[in-house]
């Protein structure tokens, strides 16, 4: 079991009534609600929080990518990863963007990741995503081309990392006369590739292909969905002739640890509810633009009038369905042991700051989680942490 510290870097000072007025904190929420003086403090606080991961024995830290919203202030995650690259020594740095279909030139991502991999001496984990539906509105990128552009951009980046340049790349969406990456990646043949997803058969089929065997991350999902998709990845891999173990499977989830179960719920309640009810708020037209999913799955979604995973959920609901782990260290340990032993998760990406959770509670959460959850569980699973590995 590997333990990652994942930050979303929300604009925690948001006037939450704004999301009621605009019915969202994405795309159309005016940036007049953003105060750069507060932003300055938040960015530095959040980077400090991630840097704690390096000294407290986490295996890695994670940033991600979203655009034009108060939910997460990392539209250009490479900038934050670059800062972390120099301020950390042990942890892996996972960039759980980049939203490839939004880009007119995906070679920029090949370059950015290669630089990070060089600076860190191979501590980079390279994430590839399509971005969520809202991004296609914010960037006026065509959602109907999302899948095609994702696959082509991915091919281009991996070729840029693995083929000797210069070479031409001849795609439908991307066409280059000279692909010739300077710098080349530090890791051979290239950094590990992780694919975060909310759960999609098409993504699992693609990520688990024997040519790729990418780590698949399930994000923000009820436990039932986590179980389903982890099993689906293993089954799909087996059908394609290989055995996928926990090292191929990850789970990203908000977690709050306090001294007792009661205290944890009491301290976390307003902040996790702000997260699910305000920061994630989006009308359906915004989150699933036409073409973002296949027509068939969209039609099924509409027919089932399926509730999106987000909405007016309170803490009891998100704790009950497994979208939020909250409790004493013993409670959290038990849930992570279950994820590892029964569900087969090999990477737990804990979001230890969420919504409006303030600095003092975030710090306490990170320290308790490191000391009372990670350290005992390393013994439980018999796996050493990064600094232990370094000492051996």
């Amino acid at each position, binding site marked *: 079991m590997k333990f990652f510290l994942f930050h979303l870097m929300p604009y925690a000072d948001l006037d939450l009534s704004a999301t009621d007025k605009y019915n969202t904190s994405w795309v159309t929420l005016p940036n007049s609600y953003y105060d750069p003086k507060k932003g300055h403090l938040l960015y530095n606080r959040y980077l400090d929080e991630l840097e704690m991961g390096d000294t407290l024995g986490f295996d890695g830290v994670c940033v991600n990518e979203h655009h034009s919203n108060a939910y997460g202030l990392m539209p250009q995650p490479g900038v934050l990863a670059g800062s972390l690259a120099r301020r950390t020594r042990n942890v892996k740095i996972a960039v759980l963007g980049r939203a490839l279909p939004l880009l007119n030139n995906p070679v920029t991502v090949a370059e950015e990741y290669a630089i990070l991999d060089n600076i860190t001496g191979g501590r980079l984990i390279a994430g590839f995503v399509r971005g969520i539906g809202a991004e296609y509105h914010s960037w*006026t990128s065509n959602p109907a081309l999302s899948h095609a552009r994702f696959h082509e951009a991915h091919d281009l980046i991996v070729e840029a990392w693995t083929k000797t340049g210069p070479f031409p790349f001849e795609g439908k969406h991307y066409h280059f006369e000279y692909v010739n990456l300077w710098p080349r990646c530090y890791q051979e043949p290239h950094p590990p590739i992780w694919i975060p997803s909310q759960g999609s058969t098409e993504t699992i089929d693609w990520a688990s292909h024997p040519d790729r065997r990418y780590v698949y991350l399930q994000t923000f999902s009820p436990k039932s969905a986590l179980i389903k998709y982890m099993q689906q990845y293993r089954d799909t891999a087996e059908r394609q002739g290989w055995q996928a173990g926990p090292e191929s499977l990850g789970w990203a989830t908000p977690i709050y640890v306090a001294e007792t179960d009661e205290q944890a719920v009491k301290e976390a309640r307003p902040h996790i509810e702000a997260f699910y009810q305000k920061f994630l708020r989006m009308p359906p037209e915004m989150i699933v633009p036409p073409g973002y999913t296949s027509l068939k799955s969209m039609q099924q979604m509409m027919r089932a009038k399926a509730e999106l995973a987000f909405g007016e959920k309170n803490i009891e609901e998100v704790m009950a369905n497994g979208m939020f782990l909250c409790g004493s260290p013993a409670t959290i340990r038990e849930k992570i042991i279950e994820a590892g032993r029964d569900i087969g998760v090999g990477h737990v990406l804990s979001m230890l700051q969420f919504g409006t959770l303030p600095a003092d509670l975030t710090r306490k959460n990170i320290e308790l989680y490191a000391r009372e959850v990670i350290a005992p569980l390393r013994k439980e699973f018999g796996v050493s942490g990064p600094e232990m590995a370094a000492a051996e």
Partner: protein
Amino acid sequence: MSAVKDYFETIEGCKTHILRAGEGQPLLFLHGANGGRWLPFLDDLAKDYDVIAPEHPGFGTSDTPDWLDNTGDLAHFYLEFMHQLGLDNVLLVGTSLGGWISCEIGVRSTQALDRMALSAPAGIHVKGVQKGDMFLWNPEQMVRNLMYSKELQDKMLAMPVSDDERDMALRNRFTTAKLAWSPRLYNPDLAKWLHRIRIPTMILWGRQDKLIPASYGERFNELIPGSVLKTFDECGHLPHAEKSGEFTAAIRDFAKG
């Protein structure tokens, strides 16, 4: 009036759904983003014309061909369509997305055309005049923003929608996104060549159009030499539905020349 013929024809490898009624000069109707149902105004026009109303490739029950990437592809498709059906001296009537396709046909070739009526066509961009964002409208906002009359809006919203109709609407929306998401509802090269449309052209617009503001009508009017502009008051983006009597009367007058 004769019954509406409902059939499929394969054109450029695409099984295309066609509705057709009436006799006389061929009138090819190109529908908008919401799809190609047979509407009352087509019944009216079928009294005087051979009305041919296909569903575009990618829409309704027509196939989605592999070659479909943009409205230029649809323009070439309809040039082949007219050729294959042996249509000549065609009165081309297009609304919204269909008006855009009509313009793309017109800048390529007007050989098979007699004249052209464009109802609130998409296809160009007027700097500083923002269009409505149909992709962020929910189903109710869509109806309310497309029609001016509150009474008609309420009537539309009260109509039951079957699962099949909802599936179809979603398919039409997917294809519309593919063709028109970015650049939003226009082709940056089209405005440069609209002066090539040298056949009589009428532009129709609802003054209260919230999707493509009526000032776009004035711009089309400037760009297409000799074109005439007719506007409808108390009317949104769909004059053929909201002002169908005046709309068909305008088409008849225009066709007389």
